[in-house]
């Protein structure tokens, strides 16, 4: 909305996705020195034509949806949870993991007639998953380590992101069922893609080129 610099503005999810995206941009020949030496700054130039904004995952979607950022890099987990209005253009291939239903090892989640309690950081994902199964569940939103909830007896199971499963194993939990795969996505504001088609398409075809090579390797 207030993008007056003329640069393409990309919101990056802080942390691992940020590093992977910067590596990708560097492969495309963009100078990312400013991001490496960012200090506490949150808006940083990349090359001459791009400006990178560092934000929390859910905020990436909010900024792109409202058009203050043209593009964003955000995990599919946040996209499913937030469910907004934007174009979802590229599966970037990194940040791969899965949503899963998990609980105490050896537990039989589906037997019995009681209403299950599910602890999760992703209430919409959990609700959607059980709605498809026509199951009424009680959902408890947890902010930190969700694994604690079944261990402490607050919930029967959790819905969370699982990457290697090590955390689950070390806490005596196991995956009952995988819900869906997750990876980082390149999203675009619905007006930006139209108003700045050439620039964005050039960037995308560059990105797709790099990802294509990696897939083959």
């Amino acid at each position, binding site marked *: *909305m207030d993008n007056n610099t003329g640069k393409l503005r990309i919101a990056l999810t802080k942390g691992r996705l940020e590093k992977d995206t910067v590596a990708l941009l560097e492969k495309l020949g963009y100078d990312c020195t400013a991001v490496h030496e960012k200090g506490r700054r949150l808006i940083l130039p990349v090359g001459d034509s791009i400006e990178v904004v560092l934000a929390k995952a859910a905020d990436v979607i909010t900024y792109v*949806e409202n058009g203050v950022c043209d593009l964003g890099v955000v995990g599919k987990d946040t996209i499913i949870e937030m469910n907004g209005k934007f174009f979802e*253009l590229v599966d970037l291939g990194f940040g791969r993991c899965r949503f899963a239903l998990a609980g105490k090892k050896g537990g039989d989640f589906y037997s019995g007639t009681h209403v299950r309690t599910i602890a999760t950081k992703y209430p919409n994902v959990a609700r959607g998953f059980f709605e498809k199964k026509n199951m009424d569940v009680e959902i408890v939103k947890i902010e930190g380590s969700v694994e604690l909830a079944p261990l402490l007896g607050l919930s029967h199971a959790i819905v969370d992101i699982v990457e290697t499963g090590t955390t689950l194993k070390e806490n005596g939990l196991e995956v009952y069922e995988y819900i869906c795969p997750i990876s980082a996505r390149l999203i675009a504001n619905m007006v930006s893609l139209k108003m700045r*088609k050439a620039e964005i398409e050039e960037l995308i075809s560059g990105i797709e080129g790099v990802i294509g090579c990696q897939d083959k390797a």
Partner: protein
Amino acid sequence: MNRFDLITPEGTRDLLFEECAAVKAVENRLIQSFKAKGYSEVVTPGLEFYDVFDSKSRYFPQESMYKLVDNKSRLMVVRPDSTMPIARMTATRLREHSIPIRLCYAQSVFRNRPGMRGRRDEIRQTGIELIGVGTRRAELEMLGMALGVLSSFRTGGFRLELGHIGFFKALIAKTGFDSDTVETIRSLIEYKNYPALGDLLENAEDTPAVRALKQLPRLFGGEEVFDKAYKIAEGDDDAAAALDDLRQTYSRLVSMGSAGGITIDLGLVNRMDYYTGIVVKGYIEGCGDAVLSGGRYDRLLADFGLDVPATGFAVNTDSVARTEMKTNPVELETVQAVVYGEDGFETKAAAYADELIAKGMRAENGVFDTLDETLAYAKKKGLPVHVVSDSVRIIEN
């Protein structure tokens, strides 16, 4: 108990001074330009029966409407859209009216949206409906007006984007997908979700229609889109017919001028139950959402018992006003003088103020009892005071 008597509900807002002036200015400009082309302004009720928006095609998801019940326990909604009430009104009160029927409106619509996302629940819209005649001329009148509207905004560049819902409908009809899958595919195309669309169609039978659907979200841009689209839809007569229709309208519109501002997106597949042909969106620089939206909806009036074609568009007045304000500060029509009548001369002062106003000035009446208070007040506002007694003297401040 919490009381909410000092705040407005989420998604709504008070409009004061500059903001109010900016919105009204856009609204007035649009309505004047519509009236000049023979459109008559109408107002529909703020409340309608739920049934108006709950036809068999389910144009509006029920969770997006604000609902209440009337004194007979019938379900009502706060108007979520203006086109459907106008269709209802036309199909009943204007049934015998000679066609074409040209209507315009400026009123709010209300949508119940997820909160805290920087979006509005009350949206002021200004729009037109051209009802009863389905010719290309009628369509071009609507699109030409949309183009005129976009280029009249005091913002940077703009785009008028055309699509044709018939292209998608032709392709999807050749596949055997059930209605849920069709809706998933439609939504993936609308949001240009290339990866998910690719995955979903990967498992489907490899037919020309499925291959074409995979390409559909990428079919946007300038005139070159047509060549690609014809190639993709080769052998599909219905899809080709939709493309022919769109291309004819496109080239006629381009010949009317401002070719640079007109683009094509065959992936515009929003509200596919509602639109029947050309669909249109308008974008302006500096606004993250479409500011204009419309198209051809030839079956909507039939839902209300009058089977006639129609086209129209609506402009998001709020978004336009907000975007215009960023680069064009609004000048308020502030008052230029205070008129104060000495005791016994109040009537004369009022007449004198009317004289000033008749000359084109903006003058307000002094309501304080003493001259001192009036002067103190006028000084704060930087206004001259016209003191009326036997004569008039002007005290500059």
